[in-house]
């Protein structure tokens, strides 16, 4: 009997499933093959959040899709609202009022700040610094309060940034409240920047992604900037009012987990700067193009196709929208930055890493399974 059994594997080799039930993994899993302490291969296991948005959008009008686009990323719905709205605006040739453009940018940047705060929080948790996690989610709530006041929804704004502009103007007192919240964010950044030897030990020199590898693997956004490449869609191809704003693109040369983590903090500072500038220059006027004022108006999208790129908190997002002249988009391809970050980049970085470094590498990529699976 005994010789019919499978050969006993080398006892240092085993499989480890990181996620989807891991507290820090999100709705996503990585199958790791491990030999002793070293990860010998990693295979991403996506699909737990696949809802088929690209197909769903083909059955709905742009104003319904604006609401749907919230769900593209749990952590930064406003940025995805914005990119969907821009695609429809471009296809339909809508002139977005100047005030709406400013409001869009303010909301997108606030959304970026809160997304980076979550990034800091989950990264802290992943590297064993639980206080950081609680701090982050506490401070994030200030921004959620703002969102509730302005859009009506704390996490999901229900298509606040819609084709043609934004759904409604800032309520009274929004400006003062935003400025107060930004002061709180400064406080948060100070806390994030406190010296933390444990973090340095976990992050420095770990998960090195050279710039040529980053480009080959399709990395964008903070991951690519952490590898020393200066690129940002907001600068390369300014949309909305980004060409009028003065901000820096943080870049770091170290290419490791620490570099990506620091990029996150630097970007928050830049976003605060952007919001302050935009508030300063916020013009008066309409917030939605007049032909779209009633959300229930039936719209026809002229025949055509556009490819719109935006910089969301995680990197380059894009929407490729094709219309055949009907009231619904014929095809809406969504390119999420995490589709590349969580499959090729993550698999590449985890291979050969220490098992203890897996969470640090994993969270340094600022991942969000929602926009990968779509």
């Amino acid at each position, binding site marked *: 009997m005994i010789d019919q059994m499978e050969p006993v594997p080398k006892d240092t080799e085993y499989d480890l499933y990181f996620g989807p039930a891991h507290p820090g993994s999100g709705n996503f899993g990585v199958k790791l093959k491990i030999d002793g302490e070293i990860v010998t291969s990693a295979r991403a296991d996506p699909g737990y959040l696949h809802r088929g948005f690209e*197909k769903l959008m083909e059955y709905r009008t742009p104003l319904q899709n604006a609401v749907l686009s919230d769900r593209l990323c749990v952590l930064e719905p406003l940025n995805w609202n914005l990119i969907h709205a821009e695609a429809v605006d471009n296809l339909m040739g809508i002139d977005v009022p100047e005030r709406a453009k400013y409001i869009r940018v303010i909301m997108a940047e606030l959304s970026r700040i809160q997304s980076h705060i979550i990034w800091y929080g989950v990264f802290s948790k992943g590297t064993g610094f639980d206080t950081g996690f609680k701090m982050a989610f506490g401070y994030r709530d200030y921004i959620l309060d703002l969102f509730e006041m302005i859009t009506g929804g704390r996490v999901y704004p229900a298509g606040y940034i819609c084709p043609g502009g934004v759904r409604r103007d800032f309520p009274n007192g929004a400006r003062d409240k935003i400025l107060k919240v930004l002061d709180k964010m400064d406080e948060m950044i100070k806390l994030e920047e406190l010296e933390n030897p444990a973090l340095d030990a976990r992050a420095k020199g770990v998960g090195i992604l050279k710039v040529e590898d980053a480009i080959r693997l399709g990395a964008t956004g903070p991951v690519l900037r952490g590898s020393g490449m200066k*690129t940002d869609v907001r600068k390369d191809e300014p949309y909305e009012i980004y060409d009028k704003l003065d901000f820096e693109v943080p870049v770091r040369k170290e290419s490791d987990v620490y570099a990506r983590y620091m990029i996150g903090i630097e970007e928050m500072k830049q976003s605060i700067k952007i919001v302050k500038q935009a508030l300063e220059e916020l013009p008066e006027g309409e917030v939605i193009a007049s032909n779209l004022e009633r959300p229930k108006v039936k719209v026809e999208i002229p025949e055509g196709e556009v490819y719109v790129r935006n910089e969301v908190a995680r990197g380059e997002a894009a929407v490729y929208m094709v219309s055949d002249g009907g009231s619904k988009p014929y095809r809406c391809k969504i390119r999420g930055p995490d589709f590349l970050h969580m499959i090729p980049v993550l698999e590449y970085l985890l291979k050969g890493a220490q098992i203890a470094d897996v969470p640090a590498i994993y969270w340094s990529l600022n991942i969000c399974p929602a926009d990968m699976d779509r």
Partner: protein
Amino acid sequence: MATKETELLDEMKSKFKVDGKIQRERRIWVSTDEKKLMEMSNWLKDRGFVHLSAISVTDWLEEGNYELTYHLWSYNDKILVTLKIKIGRKNPAIDSVTPIWKESAQIHERELHELFGVKFKGNPDLSPLFLEDWERSPPFRKDFDWREYVREEFYDRENEREKVYYD
């Protein structure tokens, strides 16, 4: 006025005999065919289009065609070139661009293989990505009716609360 965009488009037109247009600043759309894909891709990659932003398929059901679009970004020129290629809808197959854009192309092609059933010749791994135990036709094709699928799989006509979905 000769801009970067017109120069690039003219160069492509004379070199590959293709049709193209400049939609706006930083956007070039080029229609080509599958025979020229590899040659053009290689040339564009060498010219600085190192970032493959996305690959997409549009299913033109009435025409009986799949339209593949390759969206390429150049970090130096800051231009997005889109290559558009039409292939037949029946048994769609095309050469893989994995040798050129490596892993970033590989994963996009793997997704499209699953969702549209396009076979990318030369792609080393086209295993299913999102869907588990999927045996039907690729779900993103225009002739796949997801409402019908949901009724068949998940609802019960006899059930009082669910029979509304059958009216």
